[in-house]
């Protein structure tokens, strides 16, 4: 099978990036080092090619009504020029995907979906159209460049001439200077301040080249999916397909804040009401190791020799300088400071449940996800 390649693929190869297969896409894992790229995003700015993600345009008089039926959040509370982190559920309350809905105009939304869920999401949205609405996968010929880190704003303004200083967290705006049908949003998947640019391929190539050529003296580096994963984990952000899937609900994943349960209806609402009444059987928690190996997906979590859960994600946190992870445990064990045992290669290591996110940022700005409610 030939791999999908983004419009920036040639640039990654030219930079000698270590490439990886991400759901059929040949993407940069790192350029020099995951740890270096991680630190660059926390202290300067990193440029990510995330064009593998799907861009779906939902527009027409029924756009808002359609998305409000599909998403757990109240999309009608999201004003034009605003965005929200939310999820689509099946009738059983299982998570089909987590997405960001950017409300470009009153009845015009851009939905960013996970690459592995792209076809499924588009079909799901088509099936559940309400009224006169067009659901279009506009990903072909388009890219997404994420510029993340405390210096990302000045990078965009000074190097690329894009006015973004007026954008608040989860704001989105059309940027003609970036191309036709180009938008910039103050969103990201790193926990640091940053922006995501949705734009045509040719414009993405221009932006990528300019940012890296002119920004090199200002701590701007290209960053790969490896750093994207360690950054999002430090920020306590879940990864679809790893930390949640159709077998988990937003309540299981401790993302109940995304759910507007008082909305008249949305797909999965009845299942969530039933789950609320019955209580949870497991909950996602964050945990850290004072000292020890890296927790990996699938490792067992125990209490007194009895298995109580499983790790879904883990990594070494470069900023906290310790191993961190997320996993599902019995709800009674989800309280911070609870001690669990992690089994790695047959050995037992104590881990402590901690409140997410692991890393709370330096500027006092609330973490990305918490801002998504607006």
């Amino acid at each position, binding site marked *: 099978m030939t791999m999908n390649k983004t419009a920036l693929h040639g640039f990654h190869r030219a930079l000698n990036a270590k490439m990886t297969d991400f759901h059929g896409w040949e993407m940069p894992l790192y350029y020099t*080092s*995951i*740890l270096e790229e991680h630190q660059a995003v926390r202290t300067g700015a990193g440029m990510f090619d995330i064009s593998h993600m799907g861009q779906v345009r939902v527009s027409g008089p029924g756009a808002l009504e359609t998305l409000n039926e599909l998403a757990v959040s109240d999309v009608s509370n999201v004003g034009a020029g605003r965005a929200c982190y939310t999820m689509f559920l099946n009738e059983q309350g299982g998570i089909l995907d987590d997405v960001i809905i950017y409300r470009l105009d009153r009845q015009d939304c851009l939905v960013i979906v996970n690459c592995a869920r792209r076809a499924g999401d588009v079909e799901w949205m088509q099936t559940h159209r309400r009224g006169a609405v067009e659901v279009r996968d506009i990903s072909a010929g388009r890219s997404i460049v994420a510029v993340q880190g405390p210096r990302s704003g000045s990078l965009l303004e000074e190097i690329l001439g894009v006015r973004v200083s007026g954008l608040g967290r989860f704001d989105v705006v059309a940027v003609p200077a970036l191309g036709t049908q180009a938008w910039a949003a103050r969103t990201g998947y790193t926990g640091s301040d940053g922006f995501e640019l949705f734009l045509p391929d040719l414009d993405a190539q221009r932006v990528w080249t300019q940012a890296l050529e002119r920004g090199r003296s200002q701590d701007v580096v290209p960053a790969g999916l490896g750093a994207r994963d360690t950054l999002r984990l430090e920020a306590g952000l879940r990864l679809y397909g790893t930390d949640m899937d159709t077998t988990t609900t937003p309540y299981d994943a401790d993302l109940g804040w995304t759910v507007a349960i008082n909305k008249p209806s949305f797909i999965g609402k009845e299942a969530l009401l039933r789950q609320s009444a019955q209580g949870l059987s497991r909950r996602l928690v964050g945990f850290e190791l004072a000292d*020890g*190996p890296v927790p990996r997906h699938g490792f067992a979590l125990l209490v007194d020799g009895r298995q109580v859960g499983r790790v879904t994600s883990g990594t*070494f946190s470069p900023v906290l300088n310790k191993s961190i992870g997320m996993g599902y445990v019995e709800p009674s064990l989800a309280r911070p400071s609870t001690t669990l045992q992690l089994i790695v*290669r047959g050995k037992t290591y104590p881990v402590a449940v901690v409140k997410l996110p692991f890393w709370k940022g330096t500027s006092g700005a609330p973490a990305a996800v918490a801002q998504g409610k607006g």
Partner: protein
Amino acid sequence: MQIPPALRYTKTHEWIFPDEHEAMVGITAHAQEELRDVVYVELPPLGKQVNQGEPVAVVESVKAAFDIYAPVSGTIVKTNAAVTQSPQVVNKDCYGEGWLFAIQPSRPSEVNTLMTADAYTKLITSEQPS
């Protein structure tokens, strides 16, 4: 890439310094580059008896854990605390400060079954993807 001529090498990218009392073992520059970000090292206990080709230590990068195999049979007589304290030493100086453990060989002739620097150079050149 550095491949010191005084060392012997395994197909699994360990190096060993041939010595009948304390044969130091580490990972090669090629392995270090492939792993890239070493964040955790697990070493065998002192006194452990090991057989040639058996996994005895673990080096973890951000992305995955890798077994380190004993280049020769013998007893673990030394381990390097510096790499468990600061795992990135393995990236910075894999043939020096980043050594992992030392074996007292029980079958000294086994070292002759390992690759010379020339043979190892050929191996990794043939493994290069492009």
